[in-house]
């Protein structure tokens, strides 16, 4: 199911981001610090998995030939996934998960707003649906960053540590390549480079409120969009894909 169609490849990137991040969030089910947060995290995970399905369904329609959303989720290998590295990092502690979520949500809101204006009507429709979710996600994760950062000595320390670890993975959100340039010219893709200023504003304001120190990253790590991943994605896929790998075509 490799495709040369630019819109399909773009939809798969966005679907991969959503599926992998959604899966990482789902790993908290029954393990969250308390019941209310367990349900809240599950809701966000489901939002992202639902979003992944919409992107995959669209890609499957474009590819045709019996390919379905499940083909993309369950039968591709690590190198075929093109999600951001930020999305695949292991969930870490609660501060790490919420910190990652906040950094992504602060990007995802302006991204989905812009995607809603895509010249591709299907991508625009997915964007319009996702905007509302993203607004709530950001409200929730921002709230947690302030609580943890401006909380106890330990929560502040863990939150700052997570932020420092995650920072080098944030630059990849704003990278462009040939595919993006091509689709931006057609009005289909979002020019993420233009979202950076908005993202920095949201993050700076929140870190100030949370009494956290903005990290000064020395380098950006990337590769996800080219299929070059951390070791962790392989383990994630092993769990995510096990049933379909062991029993191909199995249905519930």
């Amino acid at each position, binding site marked *: 199911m490799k495709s040369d169609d630019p819109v399909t490849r773009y939809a798969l990137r966005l679907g991969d981001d959503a599926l992998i991040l959604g899966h990482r969030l789902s790993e908290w089910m029954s393990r969250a*610090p*308390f*019941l*209310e*947060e367990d*349900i*809240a995290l599950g*809701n966000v995970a489901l939002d992202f998995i639902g979003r992944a399905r919409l992107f995959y369904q669209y890609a499957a329609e474009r590819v045709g030939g019996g390919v379905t959303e499940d083909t993309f989720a369950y039968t591709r290998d690590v190198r075929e996934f093109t999600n951001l590295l930020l999305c695949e990092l292991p969930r870490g502690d609660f501060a790490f998960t919420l910190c990652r979520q906040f950094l992504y949500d602060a990007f995802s809101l302006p991204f989905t707003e812009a995607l809603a204006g895509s010249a591709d009507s299907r991508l625009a429709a997915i964007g319009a649906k996702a905007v509302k979710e993203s607004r*709530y996600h950001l*409200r*929730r994760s921002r*709230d947690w960053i302030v*609580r943890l950062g401006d909380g106890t000595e330990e929560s502040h320390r863990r939150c700052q540590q997570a932020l420092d670890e995650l920072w080098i993975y944030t630059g990849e959100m704003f990278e462009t390549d040939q595919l993006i340039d091509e689709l931006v010219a057609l009005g289909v893709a979002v020019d993420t480079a233009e979202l950076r200023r908005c993202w920095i504003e949201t993050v700076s304001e929140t870190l100030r409120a949370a009494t956290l120190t903005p990290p000064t990253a020395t380098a950006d790590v990337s590769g996800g969009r080219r299929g070059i991943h951390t070791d962790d994605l392989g383990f994630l896929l092993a769990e995510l894909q096990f049933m379909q790998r062991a029993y191909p075509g199995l249905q519930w």
Partner: protein
Amino acid sequence: MADQMQLYEVFIRSRRGLDHKHVGSLHADDAIQALEYARDVYTRRGEGVSIWVVASRDITASQESDCESFYDPLDDKPYRHAAMYALPEGVDSL
């Protein structure tokens, strides 16, 4: 963590409802967080369009032992009840 948190009572007004109804309770750090959890815990299936949260400690409740003096004296005053009146047509929310 949950033991340091406050208990909140959650009231939801449904899409077609006229009043907020008590649906349950939850733990949260403060009222803002309680409102968000109420959204996540009690409106997952489109149950509501408006949420109230109230700290449980702010509710003053009548006691079981009050029943006799509170309610029994009303039993022999049927004229206070509107039960004898026929409801005019078009009034459906009395």
